[in-house]
């Protein structure tokens, strides 16, 4: 059958554009579309006509979660918890993707830079042993901008959190920091970070014990500070690597 006879083409194009062409006929026509500019044009004209039927559809404002989810899915570095059953080679793929490797290296590099230029950031704890922080986390926002610097001494029981840029916490909610252990184990709550400035979060155990298996940190907005055993309820708005410097 010659699909490109003008009249036949127009009939198929309009049913295709409307969505009433289905099954094998639809798949056959899709093959024609890939090969024929005339068919693409014919469908385009009908899509333009049919789009006028959408002008009477009342708009419906999506919840802000749709946009946040989009940012998370498109722009956030893949969170460690996202893969429930990572395939055998997924770590290698992730490592070689460049994005995560570059991100990790950039994170460490920036953290070291910040620490070098502002040693007081993490020196607020008493200098009992004169050693710099062992665990450092750098969280970025959806656009990749460094937002939270978290640091702790290896045997310290305090996490210092410095906001590198202010964040907007929705009214009635808190910005909850989570630790995301490797191997996709469930995230556990660390504490609440401030909208701006610096805060100290008391840890239930030493950093070494808490963060040894934690390659990533993330922040979500929650209706209340999370308790032990809680799981993140909202999307992660900030996330980044947690590294052991020494």
């Amino acid at each position, binding site marked *: 059958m010659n699909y490109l006879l003008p009249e036949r083409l127009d009939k198929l194009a309009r049913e295709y554009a409307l969505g*009433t062409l289905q099954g094998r006929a639809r798949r056959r026509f899709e093959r024609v579309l890939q090969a024929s500019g005339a068919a693409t044009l014919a469908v385009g004209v009908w899509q333009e006509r049919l789009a006028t039927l959408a*002008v009477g559809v009342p708009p419906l*404002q999506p919840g802000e979660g749709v946009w946040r989810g989009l940012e998370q899915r498109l722009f956030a570095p893949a969170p460690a918890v996202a893969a429930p059953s990572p395939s055998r080679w997924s770590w290698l793929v992730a490592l070689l993707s460049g994005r995560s490797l570059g991100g990790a290296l950039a994170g460490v590099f920036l953290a070291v830079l910040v620490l070098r230029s502002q040693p007081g950031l993490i020196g607020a704890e008493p200098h009992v042993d004169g050693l710099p922080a062992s665990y450092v986390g750098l969280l970025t926002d959806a656009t990749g901008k460094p937002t939270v610097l978290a640091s702790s001494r290896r045997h310290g029981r305090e996490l210092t959190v410095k906001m590198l840029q202010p964040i907007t916490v929705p009214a009635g909610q808190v910005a909850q920091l989570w630790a995301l252990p490797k191997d996709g184990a469930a995230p556990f709550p660390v504490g609440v970070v401030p909208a701006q400035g610096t805060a100290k979060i008391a840890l239930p155990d030493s950093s070494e014990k808490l963060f040894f298996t934690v390659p990533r940190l993330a922040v979500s907005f929650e209706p209340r500070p999370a308790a032990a055993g809680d799981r993140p309820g909202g999307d992660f708005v900030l996330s980044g690597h947690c590294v052991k410097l020494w």
Partner: protein
Amino acid sequence: MATTTNDDLARWLARVAMHDRAAFEQVYRATCAHLLGVAFRILNQRERAEEVLQEAYMNVWHNAAGFNAALASPMTWLINIVRNKAIDALRSGRTERAATVALDDEAFEVADESRAQPQQLLEDSFNKMKIGTCMAGLSASQRQALALAYYRGMVHSEIAESIGAPLGTVKAWVRRGLDRLKTCLEAVGVASA
């Protein structure tokens, strides 16, 4: 959409093709409410419509380079992406839902709504496009068939079942509706081939 023109959208989409996030957010903010409206009419369920909307914008981000201003207006291009995704979601979930909401109240409510509401959307669209008078030449059944196909994503057999008419008749109604739409739009200078 009041202050956003198709030219703005076309310009932003060109920047989205170069992975400009700010332009992507502009496209989203300007069009999300209208597109959610379209997805919601088809799926009739807000949560699923929002999922579809998110999928659609993922598609926009990845395929903005495929937008060709010479072939389609930006809004038409966006509506097609959303409509296709919503119809796919509808058809993949239809069997499941048919089994779960067979006889409860919701089923009747949806059925009722599908008789009345799509035709109202059709009327409103005709009036906004200033083709209401021209389209008055269509019978109520012809309008209904066109409205169910466009706003509900139904195929001929489903429309036939929904309004209790023979399949061949429904196909003719849809054809007639499309012919008339083409004529009336050409009369006001829209999408002449």
